[in-house]
């Protein structure tokens, strides 16, 4: 089954991910790719608190994610790969990680970002990174929850 969802969500592990996505997908593990959280054991403890014990949480840096991706994607278990930044998912794509599709789940307002959807704010540079990812063959859509209709990247410009 391997990795079923590649999500960008700046709240990282929270209700929408654990209840909204992990439950219907039957996820056995979540890979959280974030260099800062990878180095912070107390933050890891906090993120684990939100995940049922039957779901394993793997904390990885960008380089570890690029290194271990093949192992996760060939796992007989079902997994979700999660990151908080467009830049991170773009970097994984640029590093040759075969992402196939990317789900934009929640990127919130910061200076320079433009509202594309109520839960999705992107700078023009972030949009360009995603467009490059799509040009490389990765399907990019915005969808906060499985019950919502996916929005194609082309509709966000």
């Amino acid at each position, binding site marked *: 089954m391997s990795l079923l969802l590649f999500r960008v969500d*700046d709240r*990282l592990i*929270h*209700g929408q991910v*654990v209840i909204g996505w992990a439950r219907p997908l039957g996820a056995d593990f979540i890979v959280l790719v974030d260099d800062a959280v990878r180095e912070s054991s*107390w933050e890891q403890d*906090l993120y684990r608190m939100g995940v049922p014990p039957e779901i394993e949480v793997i904390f990885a840096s960008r380089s570890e994610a690029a290194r271990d991706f093949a192992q996760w994607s060939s796992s007989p278990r079902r997994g979700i790969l999660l990151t908080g930044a467009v830049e991170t998912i773009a970097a994984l794509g640029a590093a040759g990680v075969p992402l196939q599709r990317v789900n934009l789940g929640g990127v*919130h307002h*910061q200076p320079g970002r433009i509202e594309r959807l109520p*839960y999705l704010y992107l700078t023009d540079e972030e949009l360009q990174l995603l467009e490059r990812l799509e040009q490389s063959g990765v399907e990019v859509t915005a969808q906060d929850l499985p019950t919502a209709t996916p929005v194609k990247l082309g509709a966000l410009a």
Partner: protein
Amino acid sequence: MSEPVRGVVACHGRLAEALIDAVERISGIQGALVPVTNSECDKGLIEKRIAAAAGAGPAMVFTDLPSGSCLIAAATLARRQNAIVVVTGVNLAMLIDFVFHRDLPLAEVAARVSASGHKAIQVPG
């Protein structure tokens, strides 16, 4: 007498406002609790909202879930600011108890409201 503990209720959606409205209607005490929503913001902005609501004095941050963006933001802030304690699983009973005991030391209030929150969960009959 020490400064009363300020209460910040940080929840998903409009839950914090609704809880505080109920507390004020029941207790008659106004302004002891400040609502914070996590709507339309990332964890950094939630933390800023909580920090602004908590101020510099002793504060207790109540979060709805023992996980997620509200807890992460509150716990991150509490690591930097000693005068903040985080209590998860907020319910009406603990907030009502809180507004009547804000003059106690912070650690004592935390233990007290945690106990009253637990005590309110019953299966009658």
